[in-house]
């Protein structure tokens, strides 16, 4: 097999498009720190929505967290929910618009701390929605406080000497938890910090939206991501740290399918 080598000149040559941003991601700068995992996760969700041809029928719910402005970046109808309440808001939308595609996009603090009750009960009702759960093990937005998913011993501004599980609880594997609920059709954990993971994550998101199309119940796609700012690392360091530490505790793959 010969691999095609593309020269820069060829790339520039008109008509040779090798990559195109989905039209569902708006032009203009994202508000994320350079190197942050949120940007790729946004792109994948929007690519799937575009490829399935459902953008006119898709309503997204943005959380409170760094992705609070997701509605600025995703060129579809979006709502912005109070902190942790996105699954309840999505429930409301889906109940009045059962034929629409509804998804939430939430961080770990939003989904697994303040919104635990909303998460569990939406899943338990088997709400026919997609939950995209970006787990970066920290509260990025508010400046790096401990999240429910912060690893044992991991430092944050509210666990300055490292998370002590005896008093602060254990990092919460909420995707495993909700996978036990009969209402959940699909629960999976993915990552986006390298191309090979990105491809798989996109397949998972696609499957989640197809489940919604087929009325199968709740689909939860967890994406383990870096927060280089919150972790106080360079983007490259944070990807390495993610691989070595986050993935050791939060193993990738389908939990329920």
């Amino acid at each position, binding site marked *: 097999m010969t691999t095609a080598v593309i020269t820069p000149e060829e790339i520039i040559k008109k008509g040779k498009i090798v990559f195109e941003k989905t039209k569902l991601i708006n032009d203009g700068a994202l508000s994320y*720190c350079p190197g942050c995992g949120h940007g790729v996760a946004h792109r994948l969700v929007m690519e799937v929505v575009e490829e399935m041809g459902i953008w006119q029928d898709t309503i997204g719910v943005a959380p409170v967290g*760094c992705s609070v402005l997701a509605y600025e970046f995703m060129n579809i109808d979006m709502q912005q929910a109070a902190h942790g309440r996105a699954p309840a808001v999505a429930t409301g939308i889906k109940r009045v618009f059962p034929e629409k595609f509804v998804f939430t996009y939430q961080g770990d603090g939003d989904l697994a701390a303040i919104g635990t009750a909303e998460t569990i009960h939406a899943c338990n009702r088997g709400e026919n929605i997609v939950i995209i759960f970006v787990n970066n093990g920290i509260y990025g*937005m*508010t*400046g790096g406080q401990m999240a429910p998913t912060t690893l044992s011993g991991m430092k944050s501004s509210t666990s300055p000497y490292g998370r002590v599980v005896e008093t602060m609880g254990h990092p919460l594997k909420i995707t495993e938890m909700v996978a036990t609920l009969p209402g959940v059709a699909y629960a999976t954990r993915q990552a986006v910090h390298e191309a090979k993971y990105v491809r798989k994550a996109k397949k998972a998101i696609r499957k989640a939206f197809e489940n919604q199309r087929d009325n199968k119940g709740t689909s939860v796609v967890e994406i383990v991501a870096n927060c280089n700012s919150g972790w106080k690392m360079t983007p490259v360091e944070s990807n390495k740290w993610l691989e070595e530490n986050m993935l050791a505790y939060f193993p990738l793959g389908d939990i329920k399918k």
Partner: protein
Amino acid sequence: MTEEIIIAGFGGQGVLSMGKILAYSGIMQDQDVSWMPSYGPEMRGGTANVAVILSNERISSPILNEFDTAIILNQQSMDKFESMVKPGGLLLYDPNGILHHPERKDITIATIEGAKEASALKNKKTFNMIVMGAFLKIHPIVKMDNVHKGLEQSLPERHHHMIPLNEDAIKVGMAKVKIIHDLKRIAVEN
């Protein structure tokens, strides 16, 4: 005496800590002080500024629309704060990266090549102390022994070995400050 100062530049330039050291130095000479920063995640890699007030009286408003001194470390801050210097006040800036230099004739204008001098010292972190030295040369509002105490108070103990380096940087700033427009006819010996 009351000195109302705005220090403004990029996040990461040590703007906030310069203000803190000035404020602590003020406390060491029994003054009232306030330190009012811009805050929030929008500061990530963006602009940072802090209004610092040192006074012998009870400080009223920490929020100000005019300043005795503006210490300006990037163009955005120049655009925002040049006009807010009180007539007769001081504008001190690092010309590095400044495209539109200040043109006011009713204030004293001085420059300090902070970035350049910091790389000459082979330590980028001395930048803010170089700039502070330049300011203290023109307006010696805090005495050097109080600055020393202020450094002791504001730096965590594990960084105390850095105090001499910081003091050297202040001296560099004092030596290298240049008066561009001398309203008060302050003699600065280079």
